[in-house]
């Protein structure tokens, strides 16, 4: 009998607890979302940041650049990780929703086309061949469809989904139009899934950010890309000096101007830019020139 009343009271207590204290003003938190390509960088920064500013909660989602921008425009997140610049349609939507933002380049990436490490026949591809393979009207089904002396086995394609900035960038650079792509491939916004797929499949081909190739170089092989000036393999040098083309690209974070007014966000970004020179290469990408980070830091300090 008594226990029953106790139950009622505890339910009431919990409900009070639940509805009160909705204030997140006490808890400092920063929310990020977006590109799976940029994720390793922000993950590294957030982790190092935590050692110095343990009280500030940082959470990072991986919805893809497109997915991240949708949330960014809807004011659901503070910072958007992007592996491509913001689209005009997204900028429009931001404007409509009174979201002003700052674009900060944080790294260079060499978008890498990979095959399984046990693939002995494919070493380089020309840009035209890439377009033939990945274009929307592609008729390539087997390796031999592309080059006669390659095996007559079906290619298993892996690639980012439509919410991915990598997808947008690759399709624009190779197929000429962002979003134009063959559709019969295994799609995932999570590059880890793609790595698992290509690494596990002899006849697989996929593409994603350089960092993911670097971290799995034992099980993957990067193809050298020939855009008319000879075949170039992605590496620290070729991405920095731009010879790995057209697949070299900058990576960004977009920061909501309102969020920037919060002390914890500013602290985080200052930390980001200060440590980027060290953490970006560790994450598997190419750091910008030191001056660029310093300029961005200066710009940040002037924003109040």
């Amino acid at each position, binding site marked *: 009998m008594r226990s029953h009343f106790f139950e009622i009271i505890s339910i009431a207590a919990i409900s009070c607890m639940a509805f009160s204290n909705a204030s997140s003003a006490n808890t400092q938190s920063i929310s990020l*979302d977006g590109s799976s390509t940029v994720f390793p960088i922000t993950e590294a920064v957030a982790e190092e940041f935590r050692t110095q500013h343990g009280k500030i909660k940082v959470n990072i*989602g*991986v*919805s*893809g650049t497109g*997915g991240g921008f*949708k*949330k960014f425009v*809807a004011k*659901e997140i503070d910072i958007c990780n992007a592996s491509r610049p913001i689209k005009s349609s997204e900028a429009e939507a931001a404007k409509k929703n009174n979201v002003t933002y700052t674009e900060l380049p944080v790294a260079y990436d060499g978008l890498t086309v990979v095959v399984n490490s046990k693939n002995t026949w494919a070493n380089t591809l020309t840009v035209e061949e890439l377009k033939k393979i990945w274009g929307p009207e592609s008729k390539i089904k087997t390796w031999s469809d592309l080059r006669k002396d390659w095996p007559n086995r079906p290619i*298993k394609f892996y690639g980012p*989904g*439509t*919410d991915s900035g990598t997808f947008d960038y690759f399709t624009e650079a190779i197929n000429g139009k962002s*979003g134009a*792509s063959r*559709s019969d491939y*295994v*799609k*995932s*916004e*999570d590059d880890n*899934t793609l790595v*698992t*797929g290509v*690494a*596990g*499949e002899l006849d697989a081909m996929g593409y994603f950010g350089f960092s993911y190739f670097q971290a799995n170089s034992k099980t993957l092989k990067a193809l050298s890309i020939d855009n008319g000036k000879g075949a170039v393999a992605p590496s620290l040098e070729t991405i920095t000096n731009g010879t790995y083309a057209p697949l070299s690209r900058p990576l960004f974070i977009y920061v909501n101007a309102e969020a920037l007014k919060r002390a914890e966000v500013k602290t985080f970004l200052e930390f980001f830019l200060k440590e980027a020179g060290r953490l970006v290469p560790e994450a598997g990408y190419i750091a910008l020139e030191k001056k660029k980070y310093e300029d961005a830091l200066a710009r940040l300090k002037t924003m109040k």
Partner: protein
Amino acid sequence: MENAQSIERAKKIEKALLPILMVAGLFTIFVTIGIIFILSRETWQFFKMVPVLDFLFGVKWEPLMEPKSFGVLPLISGTLLISVGAGLLAIPAGIMIGIFLTEYAPSNIRRIVKPILEILAGIPTIVYGFFALTFVTPFLKTFMPDIEVFNALSGAIVVGIMILPMVASLVDDALLAIPQGLKHGAYALGATPSEVVLGVVIPACFGRIMAAFILAISRAIGETMAVTLAAGSNPQLTFNPLHSIQTMTSYIVQVALGDTPAGGVEYLTSYAVAFLLFCMTFSLNWIGHRIMQKGSK
């Protein structure tokens, strides 16, 4: 000894308590209504954008990339591949284990086996997904080199293991419910235990056993994490278990992981698929439980 006054007071308390208890009793109805309402409302929105027939009979599921296509059959085929595959593994095995437990196992063995089955049933689905990805698929690859990294067969195997305890336990219950007189009569006529079981007992509780299968398949259809890890995210209309596929449940998780904002057609697809999933499992469960309810009379 209670006196009249305290009984009066007790009756008053009871009267006050009753409405609260009744609300509690009715709560589950509200849950069902809630599910149906929410799923159908979003599905209705979806069908304003996509014709019903395209959805139900289309063979290409490409909701995100141009040219968009909203045929749900690839997802259904993926789901069926997994659940029917799991059933093919779990149902025969489950029957035999159930028979073993009821007819052949001495009570000390039964006391060991039953808890083991319960443990198997209690292992979370994510563990089975991990097991499929890191053990079953590599194991299969050693003698089936054509198998893909993500494939339906691994998914079917682990889901089969998952529903095995359920089938075994329900078969065990069904067999135990048969009146002893029936069995003894058969034995008296000189039948061996297997003949009794297969020839007399099972036909007698056939309805309940069918119900067990239906409920197990329904459970397999609703399975999410294990198949997401093991079978992949490649919706294609195929019946080849060596390929990667996508089930209805995996698709819903995929959309949620991408976290699309409310309203867009992408978001609505997950509700439409969920509605279809709900209809399938609810009808199967309804049929299964009705048979059980009737059988227990």
